[in-house]
């Protein structure tokens, strides 16, 4: 194994409940003192009324490795980054960090609206850990990356939100620490700029050989950037391992069962026809919306019609998480009987890259649109991945190809013996 950049052992962080939400009033402390002077003197807070945001977390990150951290909100991801960045101290355990650490927990840390773009680049750069000379050296690059050349001497408060975000990112993207801690910051900004930033981060971690810890809810970003993933839940590590494996397990856990969104649509009395639900009936998976096998697949959409409908038009589209159309199809002159019926699709297989997808199904008659449903819940493809282990080298299709090397000589001898 390569040299270790981060080694965490038994990290734990306890917060008193409500500590982050509201500041202490001196009154409360005085009351505590009055009630229990001895305890207050010892500075101990009682165990109850506290919560472990992180508990017994141990892991190692090798130098130059890009590791993703996933988990639901409140799983402890940000707390972990904050401890590693030394922003806050752990309650217990310890961590060893080799190299200079840059943390990017927010976009535009240290920006001040009254200062000009130029001044803010220097200020934010310094706060994030760059030296003045370093900022000077990379200044033009930063401004160009942000695309704000013309406004660089205008106060930041006159910038549009998008421009501010871009400038903030540009500064952050040009940080050059040995270890970069990034929290969910790529969730803002337009898609185009997000891609640019992701590309920049990839460059930093691959070509720059830097260690990156990357928190995100977007699995496509995690897949693209990280080889290994740490899955946190309720302050502890659920699983750690290769990206495709852990992200798939995480996604499965997220869809199974308690999806708060309504799976079954109600029938609307004034609608002529309506889609009511959908499921995978073959192959049978753990859940009706999760596909686990590359095998003949049957998908059913339940429809309810008020009356017999004449020739209808029905369309269907499958989108990936980035909103790209993966497959689209439609049929005309479709009779739809009154009452309940089912639209049945049979696919030889759905050889798609594991991840979330969503259906759009539509139904029209001569009078116009009857229903257009962005299907809930999403389709989760959780089949084995038959692709390149690194996400940027894999594609949309997940084809279980076989491969062999056939020597020409042996082929010839086979032919002779025949």
């Amino acid at each position, binding site marked *: 194994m390569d040299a270790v950049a981060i080694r965490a052992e038994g990290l734990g962080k306890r917060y008193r409940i409500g*500590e*982050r939400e509201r500041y*202490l009033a001196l009154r409360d402390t005085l009351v505590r003192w009055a009630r229990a002077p001895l305890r207050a003197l010892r500075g101990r807070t009682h165990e109850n009324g506290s919560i472990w945001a992180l508990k017994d977390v141990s892991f190692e990150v090798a130098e130059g490795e890009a590791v993703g951290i996933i988990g639901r909100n409140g799983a402890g991801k940000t707390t972990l980054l904050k401890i590693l960045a030394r922003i806050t*101290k752990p309650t217990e355990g310890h961590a*060893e*960090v080799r190299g*200079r650490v840059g943390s990017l927990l927010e976009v535009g840390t240290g920006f001040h609206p009254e200062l000009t773009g130029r001044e803010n680049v*220097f*200020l934010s750069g310094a706060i994030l850990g760059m030296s*003045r000379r370093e900022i000077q050296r990379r200044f033009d690059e930063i401004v160009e990356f942000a695309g704000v050349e013309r406004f660089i001497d205008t106060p930041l408060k006159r910038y549009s939100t998008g421009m501010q975000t871009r400038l903030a990112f540009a500064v952050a993207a040009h940080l050059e620490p040995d270890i970069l801690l990034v929290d969910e910051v790529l969730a803002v900004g337009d898609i185009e700029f997000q891609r640019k930033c992701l590309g920049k981060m990839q460059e930093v971690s691959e070509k720059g050989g830097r260690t990156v810890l990357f928190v995100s809810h977007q699995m496509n970003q995690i897949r693209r950037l990280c080889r290994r993933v740490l899955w946190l839940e309720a302050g502890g590590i659920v699983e750690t391992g290769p990206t495709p494996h852990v992200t798939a397990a995480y996604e499965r856990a997220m869809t199974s069962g308690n999806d708060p969104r309504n799976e079954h649509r109600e029938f609307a009395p004034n609608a002529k026809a309506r889609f009511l639900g959908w499921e995978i009936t073959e192959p049978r998976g753990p859940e009706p919306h999760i596909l686990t096998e590359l095998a003949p697949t049957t998908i059913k959409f339940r429809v309810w019609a008020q009356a017999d409908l004449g020739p209808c038009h029905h369309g269907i589209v499958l989108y990936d998480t980035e909103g790209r159309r993966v497959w689209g199809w439609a049929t005309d002159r479709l009779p739809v009987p009154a009452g309940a019926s089912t639209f049945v699709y049979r696919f030889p297989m759905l050889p798609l890259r594991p991840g979330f997808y969503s259906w759009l199904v539509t139904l029209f008659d001569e009078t116009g649109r009857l229903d257009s449903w962005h299907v809930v819940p999403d389709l989760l493809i959780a089949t084995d991945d038959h692709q390149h282990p690194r996400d940027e080298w894999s594609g949309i299709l997940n084809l279980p190809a076989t491969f062999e090397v056939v020597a020409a000589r042996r082929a010839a001898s086979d032919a002779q013996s025949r």
Partner: protein
Amino acid sequence: MAYLQPPVWIIRPQRAWWDIGLSELWTYRELLYFLVWRDIKIRYKQTVVGAGWAVLQPLATMALFTLFFGRLARLPSEGVPYPVFFYAGLLPWTYFASSLAAATNSTVEHERIITKVYFPRLFLPLAGVLGSLLDLGIASLLLFALLPVYGIVPGVRLATLPLFVALAMVTAFGVGLWLSALNALYRDVRYAVPFLIQLWLFASPVAYSTSLVPEPWRWAYGLNPMAGVVEGFRWALTGRGAGPGVALAVSVLAVLVVVVGGLLYFRKVEATMADMV
């Protein structure tokens, strides 16, 4: 990343109570420069008078004091013309008051960066104290214009003036350490500080002369370091009034206690500041 942090560091729950991490301050020194620069830059943005405020405030107060405490109340000024007497007292006082306020508010004001990035938090009150120095410099210009008008020629004693400025700065920093740390924990501080500064003004010989304080109590008066500073300012500029003595020694000692205690307390709070502020 040019901050030469040690290549390996260990993150632990606690650090020794006496360790205030001086070497770390040195590695981050450039950030201190930027924080001060920023404070100065934004102080008078979008104002008409701009840095003129640094002069206007003590000037207007001087005019009021001269009218009420001088012409009407006829307080003793040791033969120094009232305008010079008051302005020389107001200079260090205004500096002290504004830097104490800046230092106290520094932690709450920079809450965003405290919770998002690591750096020695000690720089926040320190930058507040350093940033106000510029105002003091600008306001001093008027003083040096005022002295010849009243025919006052400062002697060699003027060379001691920076020492009194330093004492005011360290006092503001020491008290600011306590208050900024407390402010991060208890917002009550924010409301208490303006009041505290007002009281402190009356406890310092700004609007009156130390000669009003009974002789046997002068040393105790020195427990208020600003008494020594204000008195010292007048002495260095006009040569009148009490020179450095026992009271000043008491002041220096008092400040040392406040600063050392403040450093230790601030460091203790710093560990959880990001969770509490």
